[in-house]
């Protein structure tokens, strides 16, 4: 997908040799196919948990913070600033969200948490845009600093308050959640029938309408929202042009510094929102170390999704789903998914053989057979392997498609005003 990653320009250029464009119908077909396979596996193995309504709803809850961090990364990188400080900005979001939340109500917490993250973003912008420091170095420094600040402030703010300690904030009121009446019950019933395909779809949709927090809804809306702003408005075009070729956009009168600042501040705000989600929705309190590296995972989800909102959502969903398998005691479910992996590998081998790549096909087939043997000879998978799965998958996807991924051209490069003269 070298040339056709930009949804905007379907007819701009013919696809480069070897590059294929995944159109929406094809994508939907692939997803439907994956679901159908999952369904077959579920029926063969009897592991009903893998497409259960509650499983899906947990997966969604775990995917949201990763997705928000990824969106933050997307905004920054589209403007040409690599943001590895997402983790730190999320930490700021968790802390400030809970701190304001327990005092002035959860919605104030959301606002303050977002502002906390945005301040982290502002700092990153000052260091990288104004002072032109290496973006990754600045991000690492922000991660250290954010950890220090929150650890320093926690004892000052939370000790002595009912339910608070040096590492944990007092409980925060819930933001409230909603279940679509009728629809949710109907989908759950359908899910419990165990029918081929239909029940799995019902499980997936049921997860989207059962006990959903308002913040989840906002987060989901932010994905098409981001796409619309970045790819359908002149503001977004200018912002992206700063990430592709800042010298050219400068020559057209775009204030590159301003756009980079805006993008990185929004990026911090989104990461902060992801943090707020952790400390207000996923848990009703702030806890030290709550983010557990989700900022980095968000970044990975964004790269996995080829710097596009849709792909990012898919990546976040994948991470969330594997996490949820782990959380819901799913060594049996994961064991069932081994069979799915084996089938997918076999399909991949056939596809490669059709494309006359016999060596790769053979290797893939051998791996597939090994996975199948693993499935056939064991009854469960250690949870440690499950928790490593999303990272291994990301590495695999990256190694298979890194050449086809296309990041913004000037991503991470230093830029000075007047450089092009």
């Amino acid at each position, binding site marked *: 997908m070298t040339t056709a990653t930009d949804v905007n320009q379907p007819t701009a250029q013919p696809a480069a040799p070897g590059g294929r464009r995944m159109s929406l119908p094809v994508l939907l077909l692939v997803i439907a196919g994956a679901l159908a396979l999952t369904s077959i596996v579920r029926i063969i193995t009897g592991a009903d948990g893998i497409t259960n309504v509650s499983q899906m709803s947990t997966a969604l809850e775990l995917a949201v913070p990763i997705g928000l961090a990824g969106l933050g990364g997307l905004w920054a990188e589209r403007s040409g600033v690599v943001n*590895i400080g997402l983790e730190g900005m999320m930490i700021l979001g968790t802390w400030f969200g809970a701190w304001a939340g327990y005092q002035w109500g959860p919605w104030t917490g959301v606002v303050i948490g977002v502002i906390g993250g945005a301040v982290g973003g502002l*700092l990153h912008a000052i*260091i990288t845009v104004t*002072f*032109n*420091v*290496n973006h*990754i*170095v*600045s991000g*690492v*420094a*922000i*991660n*250290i*600093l*954010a*950890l*220090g*600040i929150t*650890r*320093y402030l926690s*004892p*000052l703010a939370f000790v002595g308050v009912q339910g608070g300690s040096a590492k944990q904030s007092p409980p925060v009121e819930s933001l409230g959640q909603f279940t679509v009446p009728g629809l949710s019950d109907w989908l759950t019933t359908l899910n419990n029938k165990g029918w081929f395909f239909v029940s799995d779809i019902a499980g997936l949709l049921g997860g989207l309408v059962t006990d959903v927090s308002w913040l989840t809804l906002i987060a989901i809306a932010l994905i098409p929202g981001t796409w619309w702003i970045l790819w359908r408005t002149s503001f977004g075009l200018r912002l992206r042009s700063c990430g592709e070729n800042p010298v050219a956009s400068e020559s057209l009168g775009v204030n590159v510094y301003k756009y980079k600042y805006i993008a990185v501040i929004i990026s911090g705000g989104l990461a902060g929102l992801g943090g707020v989600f952790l400390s207000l929705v996923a848990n009703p309190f702030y806890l030290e170390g709550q983010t557990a*590296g989700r900022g*980095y*995972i968000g*970044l*990975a989800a964004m*790269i996995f999704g080829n710097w596009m909102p849709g792909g990012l959502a898919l990546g976040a969903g994948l991470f969330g789903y594997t996490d949820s398998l782990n959380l819901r005691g799913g060594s049996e479910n994961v064991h069932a998914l081994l069979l799915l992996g084996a089938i997918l590998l076999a399909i991949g081998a056939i596809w490669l053989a059709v494309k006359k790549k016999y060596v790769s096909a053979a290797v893939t087939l051998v791996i597939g057979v090994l996975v199948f043997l693993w499935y056939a000879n064991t009854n469960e998978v*250690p949870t*440690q*392997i499950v*928790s*490593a799965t999303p*990272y*291994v998958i*990301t*590495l695999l996807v*990256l*190694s*298979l498609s*890194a*050449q086809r991924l296309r990041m913004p051209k000037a991503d991470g490069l*230093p830029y000075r005003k007047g450089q092009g003269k």
Partner: protein
Amino acid sequence: MKKFDKERVLLAVAGPVIALVVAVALTSIVLLASGKSPIEPYTIMFQQATYSDIQVLIINQASLYYIAALAVAIGFRMNLFNIGVDGQYQLAAMMAAVVGAHVALPAVLQVPLLMITAICTGAFWAGIAGVLKVTRGVSEVVATIMLNAIATSVIAYLWLPDVFGVKLGNNNTTGEMHKSGWIPGFNMGDAGEIYGLVILAVLLGIGYWIVLNRTRFGFDLRASGASESAAAASGVDPKRMVLTAMLLSGGIAGLAGLPILLGDTHTYSLNFPTGIGFLGIGIALLGRNSPVGIAFASLLWAWLDKASPELDFHGYDKEIAVIMQGLIVIAVVVSYESVREWGLRRQQRRVGAELAAGNVLGGTDNTDKEVAGR
């Protein structure tokens, strides 16, 4: 003709000094803002540094930081960002602990065996990222982040009782290592023991300097960092350099946990220090990738770590040290970059002036480009 350039020295010293002053000032503002004395914490911490038992702790801790920072610095010298030092040293320490607990050779063989295990594990883990970068074009930053996360899972798996783990109460350990793998420390009487492998850290620092500054390989490495295309034009294979640098960085990272493992804990447990790889990034930056600079930086870091707990007894929070570390890193990178740009501008002006005066260019080739200091 290398004449002593006063300006160059000034520029080199200005960066860290400005950074430290700014960081201290900002930390004092934080202290003031939380209604505390902005000076007393420093006096307490300086006082701590005069006690011999704290000094031993500082030196021990600094040896871990030093090795980790060297590993990061090797990558920096050729524009590679090995964020994976964290996973590499933890996994390497774990493997060394496992080997040490299951193999019993005489000390002459056991210690080298453990070190080779650690080096190989670290190099292997970093090598995955290196191979992916060279053959598939995967960014080493993302790959090493993923590998860090995977290393955590691998360690958790190896800790399972039916793999290599030994449960001690609530703690996961790998069982105690055989005595032949223990490395005696330098006894400092009441003050405690300095890890024997502090020597290793010093040797690594010397080796790092020799390899980078006095060998063909080191020159190629620095050249690739300064300009990949120029290095390629002079006959350096960039792919091979990336892979070698990554393996070397990972191998050294693998050693980072050994001073404490062989000198003190003798098992890899939940209490084993984590996050040293990330701190190493900040330390390498502060030390400007030079072996002496990194030594000072790791001592500074270790001092902040080991002197700060005392603050808790005086009504301050020891976390102020973490804030200070973060501020130092930020101040350091910003001031280095500003000083570098200022120096460049000055140099350009001077060259311009000389050219205008009709002089031949010369004597001004002090473009000491700091690769990762930006």
